[in-house]
């Protein structure tokens, strides 16, 4: 299948570019072509929606209008972009006055949008469009024996845009199992990592990240799989800060779920970018390399 691809700032040239490259590589293995949307702009994420609601909607509307021209679903690996784009679709339907204003803004840029582009998270496309069986079929290195904590974070399941359970999602757990791995019990699987507040209120984010790392470890996880660039950053890049603040000794590799899939599919460093993971995954994944 073919879809329009919206990487988002982090996954394209930002700190999560390994997510972007592994997503593309894994999709190719699964016969899915992700064609990057040309000239897309930043979705604005939470900061812009807290700054000016209408402009935030207009930012997403431009991307949706561009995607509409390609006539396909818009797929994104980033949970925040997922929420922003879906929210825009929902609001344009729900608030006619706002739609009129967004239409006017788009018109100023010579664009039109009638609200019919479906926005999907990459995880959703993999598990629902491609399916677990098709994924298992492509496994070259079965991940048997690997204990993974499936970490969804918040925005891939909340607000309710129809993908998976808002408090107890199972799709990533099942995906890990379809690769042969073991998805450990993880009660905090859809709880917040601290999001962008890691920058302005670091202590809060470190506190939340600590709880997550602790829970994953005490449930036997050897690594954590994530579906959002910001979650990965908080848990990986700031893991040393967590250790410093709380005197803990976490050394849990935080993988993008597509990196995990890539290992199982037999892909290499070039596509999966493990060098960018701050907490090294080398030891944990040695037997699967």
């Amino acid at each position: 299948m073919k879809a329009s691809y919206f990487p988002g700032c982090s996954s394209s040239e930002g700190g999560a570019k390994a997510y972007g490259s592994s997503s593309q590589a894994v999709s190719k293995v699964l016969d899915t072509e992700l064609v990057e949307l040309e000239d897309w702009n930043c979705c604005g994420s939470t900061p812009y929606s807290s700054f000016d609601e209408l402009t935030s909607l207009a930012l997403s509307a431009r991307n949706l209008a561009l995607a509409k021209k390609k006539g396909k679903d818009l797929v994104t690996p980033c949970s925040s972009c997922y929420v922003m784009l879906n929210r825009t679709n929902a609001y344009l339907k729900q608030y006619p006055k706002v739609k009129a204003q967004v239409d006017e803004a788009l018109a100023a840029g010579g664009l039109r949008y009638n609200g019919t582009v479906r926005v999907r998270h990459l995880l959703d496309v993999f598990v629902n469009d491609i399916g677990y069986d098709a994924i298992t079929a492509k496994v070259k290195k079965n991940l048997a024996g690997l204990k993974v904590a499936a970490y969804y974070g918040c925005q891939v399941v909340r607000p309710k845009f129809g993908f998976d359970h808002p408090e107890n999602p199972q799709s990533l757990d099942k995906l890990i199992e379809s690769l042969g791995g073991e998805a450990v019990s993880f009660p905090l699987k859809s709880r917040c990592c601290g999001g962008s507040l890691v920058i302005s209120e670091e202590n809060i984010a470190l506190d939340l990240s600590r709880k997550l790392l602790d829970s994953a470890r005490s449930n036997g996880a050897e690594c954590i799989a994530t579906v959002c660039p910001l979650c990965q950053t908080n848990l990986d890049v700031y893991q040393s800060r967590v250790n410093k603040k709380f005197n803990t000794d976490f050394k849990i590799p935080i993988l993008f779920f597509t990196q995990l899939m890539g290992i199982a599919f037999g892909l290499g460093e070039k596509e999966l970018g493990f060098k960018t993971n701050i907490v090294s995954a080398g030891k944990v994944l040695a037997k699967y390399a």
Partner: protein
Amino acid sequence: MEQRKNFVEEISAIPGGEGIRLCIQCGTCTASCPNADKMEYTPSEIIALARAGYRHEVLSSHSMWYCLSCYLCTVRCPRGINPTELMHALESIATKEGLSPHHRTLTPAMYRSFTDFVYSLGSLPELGFMTWYYLLTNPLRGLRLMPVVLSLIRHGRLSVKARRLTPEGTKQLKAIVEKAEALGGAH
């Protein structure tokens, strides 16, 4: 009386804000909020204060800036209100009136740096954004994060170049954003 009615109407005019009228003060949002105990007014309290017309207290409080946008409140609210969007609405009104509590939390400044970059480039260059943010708020704090920055560089995660849109794309985006701001609010 006039003040109370206008503030609720003002909030209700922002998409996602209209739920404020339905709240029964059950406290589920607060109970679900990971940061509720760090807020000076809990989420349900903010709603009560807003409905009672305490406009200045609400807009100058730092409560909503601690919202993580985790949306747990939203999926659990028994009246179907979206408190997350309500917090966003309050943040946007506070920003427009210059009431963001910059002296009590750095989040408004961080959001500001973020939006400045998106406004001018249409994309977010992480290094540029972080540098600008720390320069703006407190350079010394930035220094403490040097080990993190160095590890990012070592692992090839910090790119100096910023992604840019094409010249046509940039022009198009600017036109759209400027029109949106003219219709909605100020930059």
